[in-house]
């Protein structure tokens, strides 16, 4: 039994899910004989880029109206992060300044380190995030790191559904973070891989991004449509750039194009067309939101049920964090020995960190999993 499935959604039958709206749109695309089959422009499909940025920043975002928002289509969230990192290394805080510190949360998605390191940054540091003792956000530690970070340091922030802890700052906490970052001239680089997937609401999941934009930050958002469209295999991502003004944006995009040209040159069109068609058509957009909510609701249900069962079993400890955390992952709080017990004795596979993929839980295995966690906690110290 895998609770360590790759970061992909699974249905209650533990199968990957093709979103109904995606199936519908794929068919429309295949049958569309008016489509041209040329290389996409280097920066990607224009209607995809604008629709993607809009979905992150909101329909009535003033930055969009001011024409200072641009997008670069990329190969998934990873591609978007990489292009953004390559750009920052070349053009941010001087020219080709590889010494600019890059801060990633402790813990974070393991690939964050490699992406920034391979883009040339020499100084990648952790910022306090997870408080293991209290199973929550280490706000004091985080704020302290922000205060102490050298000016112009880059901070990689998870827009929602923090990977791997599932623990997000509250709106009040985000405001505190923003205040310090603005005062200390720190650069905001959001990683947004779960918009819609976390709470079921696109707007709610984008609150942090939109708040920072409204506070006047120039920032990057690496967006992935792998999870919320179920398009893992088509590698659909977008790097949204919020610049100070249109002129800055033009210059930035020209350099982005140069970077893309030496990486993959022309991105693949299939996934971008699906997302673009969906986001730009009101009916399909509504249908998609429904599909996304279906996925989010299932995960929320599993969280609720898992917590309920653990409480019913009187499993020692508090289990509030299971429903307080959000998104695909949960840091259970199980220690490495308990994790080993789960794997060896109960054949429930989770990460050594105690992270489980909530999508691996189903109505048929949840009792077994809850019982196994109970046994692990009571039998193993």
């Amino acid at each position, binding site marked *: 039994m895998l609770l360590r499935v790759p970061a992909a959604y699974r249905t209650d039958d533990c199968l990957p899910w093709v979103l109904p709206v995606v199936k519908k749109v794929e068919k429309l695309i295949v049958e569309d004989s008016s489509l041209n*089959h040329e290389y996409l422009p280097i920066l990607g499909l224009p209607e995809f880029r604008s629709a993607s940025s809009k979905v992150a920043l909101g329909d009535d975002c003033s930055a969009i109206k001011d024409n200072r928002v641009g997008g670069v289509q990329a190969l998934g969230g990873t591609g978007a992060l990489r292009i953004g990192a390559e750009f920052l290394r070349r053009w941010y805080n001087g020219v080709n300044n590889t010494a600019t510190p890059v801060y990633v949360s402790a813990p974070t998605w393991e690939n964050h380190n490699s992406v920034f390191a391979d883009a040339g940054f020499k100084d990648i540091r952790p910022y306090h995030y997870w408080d293991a003792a209290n199973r929550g956000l280490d706000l004091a530690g985080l704020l302290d790191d922000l205060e102490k970070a050298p000016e112009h340091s880059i901070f990689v922030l998870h827009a929602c559904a923090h990977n791997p802890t599932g623990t997000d700052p509250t709106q009040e906490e985000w405001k505190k973070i923003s205040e310090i970052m603005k005062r200390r001239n720190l650069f905001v680089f959001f990683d947004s891989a779960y918009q819609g997937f976390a709470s079921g609401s696109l707007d709610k999941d984008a*609150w942090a991004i939109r708040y920072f934009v409204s506070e*006047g930050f120039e920032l990057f958002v690496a967006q992935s449509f792998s999870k919320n469209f179920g398009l893992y295999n088509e590698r659909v991502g977008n790097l949204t750039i919020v610049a100070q003004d249109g002129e800055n944006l033009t210059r930035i995009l020209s350099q982005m194009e140069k970077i893309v040209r030496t990486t993959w040159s022309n991105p693949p069109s299939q996934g971008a067309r699906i997302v673009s068609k969906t986001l730009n058509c009101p009916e399909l957009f509504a249908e998609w939101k429904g599909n996304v909510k279906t996925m989010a609701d299932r995960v929320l249900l599993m969280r609720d049920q898992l917590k309920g069962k653990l409480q019913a079993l009187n499993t020692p400890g508090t289990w509030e964090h299971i429903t307080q955390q959000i998104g695909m992952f949960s840091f259970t709080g199980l220690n490495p020995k308990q994790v080993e017990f789960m794997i060896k004795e109960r054949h429930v596979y989770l990460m050594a960190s105690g992270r489980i993929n909530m999508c691996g839980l189903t109505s048929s295995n949840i009792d077994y999993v809850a019982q196994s966690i109970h046994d692990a906690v009571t039998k193993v110290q």
Partner: protein
Amino acid sequence: MKRPDSKLNETEVKENGDAGGHLSVFTNVHTAAGSPEKRLLSAFKKDTNPGKAYLAGREYYSEDGKTFELRLVRRIKQQLSADPTTRPEYPSPLGLTEFTRRATEVALGKSSRAIVEERVLGVQTPGFTAAVRLGAELLRNWYDHCAAWCGPVYLSSPCDDSLAGIFQAAGIQDIREYYYWDDQQRGVCLDKLLEDLEKAPERSVVVLSASAHYPTGADLSHNQWAVITELIMRRRLFPFLLLPPQALCYGNVEREAWPVQYCASQGMELLCAQSFSHCFGLYGEAVGHLLCVLKQNSLLLSVQSQAATIVKSLWAQPSAGGANIVATVLSNPAHVVEWKEEVKHIVERCMLIRELLRERLRLLGAPGCWDRLTQQSGLYCNTGLNEDQVEFLSQRRHVYLLPSGCLNVSAINGRNLDYIAESIHRALTTSL
């Protein structure tokens, strides 16, 4: 930094975030000079002349002036979209196994000793550029274990102007040229080529076009390959072969892969970047492949793991769509026959256009010998026009060629052939 005026509501985000009042963090960013191709395309788009013709594109254009979908590909796309068993999952970082298997066979031939001896690695990449980038990164990481190797890399003169940038992006700064196209001979000058490579330091990487050289269309003969590979082996250079529009030269997949097979048969270690965009009409799908032929099977796993590490922070996994289509075609003999037929039409049309153009130019009395137009094959040909003449063509005749005087023959069709031939004639005869 000005603070927004009105109070912020708990649940709604104020929408007049003010970015004014301070310097942008990106003030130092200057506008990148667009690539020559981009500037050319931009000029073409602004050109309002109704007779304008763009002959500098990368794709194959059919008679109606548009890129098109192979009938077979269209059918397979429909089949795949109706397939209830396809599951959306992350592909492996190195790509679809069936695709890399077929892509490898198409380059090396099924019975290649290198394949049998399991010293070949195939990696699916999102397009041709990505394949070259991955190869460049691999070379930099692996070529010299003791110290990071950083070049030199030798590119043909002329070559695709994005190649240098790709190697540089991978951290290799020392990029040099070797003599390739000779204006006088209107073809490859082997002597000068060999002279340049003879001087190359050991372990230099030499980038060679296996077929359909871009942008000249001039390819090396079998004899020339034999001489060059002998030099490469003797001087311990490393060959990086390019095979972008495979099958579009002669309509014969094996024939165009011959240089790759020849090098492999000589026991050489090599990299080969392939693209399936042209021969499947899948430009928008970014279907590329990097082939690594190693000397020993024992190196395979470490190279594989190195490739996976590099891919992980570049694009994580390649996109599945196009590779699926190619794999579906290449693993089905009936499909392969049908595919080759459609490709043959493309190739024949290109040949026909070359012949027609040659005839027109001859009839107009355009100076020069135009036999080379039909001696070379594939999408591109070098007209021999110099920079001034090329500029004359775009400015005065609204016919756009690459700055090197090369053009994409497929963009010529029944409607514009006469005008283009006339324009070339004028460019050659008008004193500039």
